[in-house]
């Protein structure tokens, strides 16, 4: 009979084992905030369907100090989320050749980040222009 007895180590608390796993978990947790915020926005849409007063009430509610703090937190979290996603974006794309040279991961991440900043600014400007 074989004397082999492979030992399987436990995975408990695996995410604390490495800083890389912690930042991965942080990315996953920030996704929860994204979902939460979507709910907030969805609520706004529901209110809108219930008439102008309801919608204004919702808008009013967003300006309360608690909600302002919440927004600041969410902004920070979104920034991290964006950064971390663009960081792994090169890993999600096929190999691209550009003028005979291979597109480097840094270029892809950089372009993504710049694009999202530009998009945010554009939205801000449009919103400003409307109001």
């Amino acid at each position: 009979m074989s004397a082999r007895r492979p030992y399987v180590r436990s995975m408990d608390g695996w995410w604390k084992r490495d800083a890389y796993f912690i930042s991965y978990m942080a990315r996953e947790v920030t996704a929860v905030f994204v979902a939460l915020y979507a709910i907030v926005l969805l609520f706004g849409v529901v209110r809108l369907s219930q008439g102008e007063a309801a919608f204004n009430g919702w808008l009013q509610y967003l300006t309360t100090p608690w909600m302002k703090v919440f927004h600041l937190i969410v902004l920070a979290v979104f920034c991290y989320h964006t950064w971390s996603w663009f960081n792994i974006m090169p890993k999600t794309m096929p190999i691209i050749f550009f003028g005979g040279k291979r597109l480097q991961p840094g270029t892809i991440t950089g372009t993504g980040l710049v694009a999202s900043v530009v998009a945010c600014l554009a939205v801000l400007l449009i919103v400003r222009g409307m109001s």
Partner: protein
Amino acid sequence: MADTEKIIEIQVLRYRPEQDKEPVLQSFKVPFTDDMSVLQGLQYIKDFLDGTLSFRWSCRMAICGSCGMMVDGKPKLSCKTFLREYYPQGLRVDALAHLPIERDLMVSVEDFVTKLESIKPYIIPKEPRTLEQGEYLQTPQQRDMYEQFSSCINCMLCYAACPQYGLNPSFTGPGILALMHRYNADSRDGGQAERNELGYADEGYWGCTAVGYCSEVCPKGVDPANAINQNKMASAINYFTRFITPGGAEK
């Protein structure tokens, strides 16, 4: 490079199935010079301090893929990790994480090998060719499409870096999925449809949650996370088209 001998403490996670119920740490004091790798430190232990310490190695030049282990908790090839980087505080060496320990620093490789065998890791010719017809033509750029994924040395560091594999060993895992992509991306190959069955299965690409650490620890720049995630899009399209095309859903 200074050539004076210094002493470093190496803690090794020992596991001898015939005598240890579970792994135990053992500490050794090893004299070293700046050009010595962690592997050479372990060899010193085996040669002069404790002949029972077991680990795999062969080439000493980071190409045979034998010597992967956790060095201070990070998956590394011990032949190209240097003791000087852990001086003076010392270091700890464990068997590769997420894989069953057979003995000391040796892990089970069966799961990896079985998976490797299962993905048809050979050219399934798009157009068969006889030897008299000579080689297939392949431009340097076509070669670049898969070359990186063909550089995998099967060291399994990426498995030790992948928590999804640790949590669910039926996940095909980074290295093997990268190898699958290597063949799919080869201009000579026409076997993608056959291999996709495995890639698109639950244990295939979708077992990956884009942690990305595999690519970080890979000593050969294979970037398995890329091989996997660039296939998710194709897989998703395939999934939806299966419902649209008549009779496709049953397949």
